[in-house]
């Protein structure tokens, strides 16, 4: 790899688009070439400045409504798989043929149940999805859509973006200041995320309607993150943070003391 080639490949080096062997070869050249090192530093500096300047501009809230309204037909509300299954059952009258088919499929089900056990349960998958989303929110510039420590700013921001009103609670007094909120797509639906902080640890609190998580929250650990989930007042909550389990427990206790239950 000669000097000119290295200069041309620098953007891809910075963007980590080179193969391992190309990277090694390029780095070998960088070690001995002051000019290339300077060019690399210059590009890196611009890239960092762009990423840190908060340049991403979110769509105004009204745009989603106006797009949905302009589509040829209103988009139907989401039907979950479970509901679809119930509808399907209801649509089939309980005749013997159907029962026979059911018995057959039950037999098949019990055979495949061992197979099924090996694939992650919906909850495991959701836990994984949450960890991924949490990590992504910290890596990219997408920790917040709305930046505010004021619940009266964060709560109205969600208006019109969701089909529910998430409870937004300020816990600054308790040592967990609210720092913002964002909209995320999780578990097949749009969810509200409130971002809190405990010292330097961000805490992402995901909220969506649902009652199936149980009343008590217990903390689990995955990949060094602590997660907990519970349901209250028709909402399902998931909290995730890199802070310790006691801090997360404290956060949940304080949150639930303030939240509608």
């Amino acid at each position, binding site marked *: 790899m000669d000097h000119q080639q290295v200069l041309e*490949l620098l953007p891809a080096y910075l963007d980590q688009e080179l193969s391992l062997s190309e990277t090694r070869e390029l780095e070998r050249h960088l070690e001995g070439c002051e000019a290339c090192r300077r060019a690399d530093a*210059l590009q890196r500096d611009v890239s960092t400045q762009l990423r840190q300047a908060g340049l991403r501009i979110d769509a*105004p809230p009204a745009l989603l409504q106006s797009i949905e309204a302009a589509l040829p037909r209103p988009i139907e509300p989401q039907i979950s798989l479970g509901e679809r299954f119930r509808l399907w059952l209801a649509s089939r009258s309980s005749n013997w043929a159907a029962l026979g088919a059911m018995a057959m499929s039950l037999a098949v089900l019990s055979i495949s149940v061992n197979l099924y056990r090996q694939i992650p349960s919906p909850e495991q998958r959701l836990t994984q999805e949450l960890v991924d989303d949490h990590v992504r929110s910290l890596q990219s510039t997408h920790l917040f859509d709305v930046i505010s420590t004021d619940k009266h700013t964060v709560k109205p921001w969600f208006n019109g973006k969701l089909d529910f009103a998430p409870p937004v609670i300020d816990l600054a007094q308790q040592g967990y200041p609210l720092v913002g909120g964002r909209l995320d797509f999780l578990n097949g639906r749009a969810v509200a995320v409130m971002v809190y902080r405990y010292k330097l640890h961000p805490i992402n609190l995901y909220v969506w309607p649902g009652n199936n998580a149980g009343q008590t929250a217990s903390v689990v650990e995955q990949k060094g993150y602590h997660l907990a989930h519970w349901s209250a007042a028709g909402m399902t909550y998931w909290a995730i943070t890199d802070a310790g389990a006691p801090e997360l427990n404290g956060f949940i206790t304080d949150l639930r003391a303030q939240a509608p239950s």
Partner: protein
Amino acid sequence: MADPTNEQRFKTQVLPHLNSAFNVARWLTRNDQDAQDVTQEAYLRAYKFFPGFHGENPRAWLLAIVRNTFYTWYRQNREPASDTLFDEAIHSLETSNVRQDDSPEAMLIRRESQQQVHLALRNLPLEFREVMVLRELEELSYKEIASIIGIPMGTVMSRLGRGRQQLAALLAPMKQEA
């Protein structure tokens, strides 16, 4: 698109990328109202073409449509020559990152440097601005950018390199002033 499963898929795969679509349109048009119009038009097109979409990357697919819609619009309404440098988004920039030093002086300096970066990117020629936005703000891969713009990956790389050099040149005198 009468098929309810297509509508369902459109809602779960395409609508969630509204912020990306708008952000790209916003940086291409450099104007809030035009960006809204372009985004809306792009969504209508996307909705129409969606039954034929079977790829795995709805965001890149949508952004390609946003870009095409923008160029149609751009050819019809060339930006007025007296395009002012004023951009309301500069003036509504949040002084965000709570982790940083939050003294009033530090916030002011940060805000000013953010505005300068904003202004520099805004003044970058279109062909460089679009790759910079797709890469640095939308964090797309070279492959995705190549497919959105319809250029080889090597061209994506060279445009990013030249775009960054131009930005560095635009930012350097501002830094000296500050």
